[in-house]
């Protein structure tokens, strides 16, 4: 074999393997989604949204878990997103080259990929042990700690995209620097910041591990955040691992619901960021 043909063969083999790798990655996505739809779609109906989780053998839905998850997510994002936006503002406006800024940026990136179960254990020690029982608040705080780093990162990046000339123009007109940030920079970076909030929301909507030791679960309808709180991921975990078939059906329906919601939020966030950048 000549040198040229060998190089050509190596090239073709390498590129073919790369394309196969891409198909391999896409294959799992398709298989996962197909599984969810084929197992879950049948069990989605009005009852799912109207009735609470049943004891084994009885009819029921996931209403309490769905509402519980929505409340937990909203409260979690409600705590985590403002904190993240303010911390991100510090990094983008005040801490660009300060030492504190550099340290916070570094630690934030670590928090971003820290195992979520460790965050659950932390909140367990911080709140559940002190209060003495599991509660919706503890769950929401755990979720907030997961949302925060996502929002910090996107907020900083998006605020930095705002040209300095815009800040200078506002300052030249006599605006104090907090007003420049709030009125000018936030407004121009808004779609990007919202994207970060949406991505954070998508990330926590399906989080299970940190809720196991904080919000725990509640089989009944409950909107009292100071008690163990119903939530969809924990119900899916419990029902999927159970030997009862009707529980497993509900688990599949819940899994489909959660995945479609999260993929929807992700795609919306991407559309938003595309608009923000152009």
């Amino acid at each position, binding site marked *: 074999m000549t040198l040229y043909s060998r190089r050509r063969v190596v090239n073709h083999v390498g590129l073919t393997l790369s394309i196969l*790798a891409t198909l391999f990655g896409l294959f799992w996505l398709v298989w996962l989604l197909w599984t969810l739809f084929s197992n879950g779609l049948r069990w989605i109906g009005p009852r799912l949204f109207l009735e609470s989780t049943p004891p084994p053998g009885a009819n029921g839905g996931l209403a309490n878990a769905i509402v519980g998850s929505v409340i937990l997510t909203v409260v979690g994002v409600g705590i985590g997103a403002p904190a993240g936006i303010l911390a991100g503002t510090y990094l983008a406006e005040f801490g660009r080259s300060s030492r504190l800024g550099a340290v916070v940026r570094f630690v934030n990136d670590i928090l971003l990929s820290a195992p979520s179960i460790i965050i659950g254990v932390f909140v367990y020690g911080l709140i559940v042990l002190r209060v003495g029982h599991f509660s919706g608040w503890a769950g929401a705080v755990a979720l907030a700690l997961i949302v925060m780093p996502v929002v910090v990162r996107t907020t900083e990046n998006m605020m930095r995209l705002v040209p300095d000339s815009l800040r200078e123009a506002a300052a030249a007109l006599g*605006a*104090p620097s907090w007003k420049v940030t709030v009125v000018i920079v936030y407004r121009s970076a808004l779609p990007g910041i919202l994207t970060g909030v949406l991505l954070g929301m998508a990330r926590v909507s399906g989080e299970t*591990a940190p809720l196991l030791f904080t919000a725990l679960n509640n089989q009944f309808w409950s909107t009292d955040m100071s008690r163990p709180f119903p939530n969809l991921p924990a119900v899916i975990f419990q029902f*999927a691992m159970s030997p009862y078939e009707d529980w497993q059906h509900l688990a599949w329906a819940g899994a489909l619901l959660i995945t479609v919601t999260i993929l929807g939020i992700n795609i919306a966030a991407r559309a938003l960021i595309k608009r923000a950048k152009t």
Partner: protein
Amino acid sequence: MSSAAATPVREGAPPGSPEDTGVGVQSGAVGDRVFRGVTRFFAAVVLLSVFGMLVTLLVGSLPALKAFGFGFLASKEWNPVTEQFGALAPLFGTVVTSVIALLVGVPVSFGIALVITELAPTWLKRPVGVAIELLAAIPSIIYGMWGLFVFAPVFASTLQPWLTDHLGAWPVVGMLVEGPPMGIGMLTAGLILSIMTIPFMAAVMRDVFETVPASLRESAYALGCTTWEVVWRVILPFTRVGVFGGVMLGLGRALGETMAVTFVIGNAHDIHASLFMPGNTISSTLANEFTEATTPLYTSSLLALGLVLFVLTLIVLIAARLLLMKMKAREGVRT
């Protein structure tokens, strides 16, 4: 905090902000101070929460560390009845599943990044990239359910017997594929972890590949290199540090991943040579046993496991970030 805000500490104020000019102090000085103080407070919250995690885990695991000392890391005993606890079995499981995840995930991620940056036509780049990223958006618990109910049975009836038949007689590898094809176990957990880490590694690799200057790439093509040679001899050496950082990031994910592993690993406090046997990881032990721990020493031992996991991921993630920062710094020098 007020004293810190009053002293003229300059933290790289944006050029042209009121502090630079010296005018406008009278109109917005209070607002500026408050606003800056509030943002700085929340920046500190980020620091404090990571610090708080470390302290919580450290304090909580003290009783266990006192009782077992460094033997905690070396003992594979895990017996709630006699209160003998050791981290070896879950630690072993964590490391083995993560290594499997990397062995499968790294080459695949490399191929995906290569396709997205070098091969795919422009109209296809974005859809493929988004699809791979959606793989990262699917919650861990969904991977777990799918792994247990769909993947494991298929795996047990096809790939596992095939592996035993074809590799079982080999000297060392044979030991790894011994045992009944149950579908669940260390290998299944590792494979599912690899699928979950691929999007993270592929995204980093794609980003660092794109930092290679076009002139470098084009020069290589002009000299007659094939695409594969351009990637292997020009792009990869140029981005080595960043690629390695991405792999570490993927490793950090794999080490701490909980729900998917909990579903498929089988949850046995055992160490087997065979990858087909059920095992345990630190995170799955926590997920399964934390709310059931009855005695203080049991809880403390679980917290000590959490500490081991946190320190492990901290080391890996710090290494990942330092590598990626080095990559970024070099980019700055070049342009």
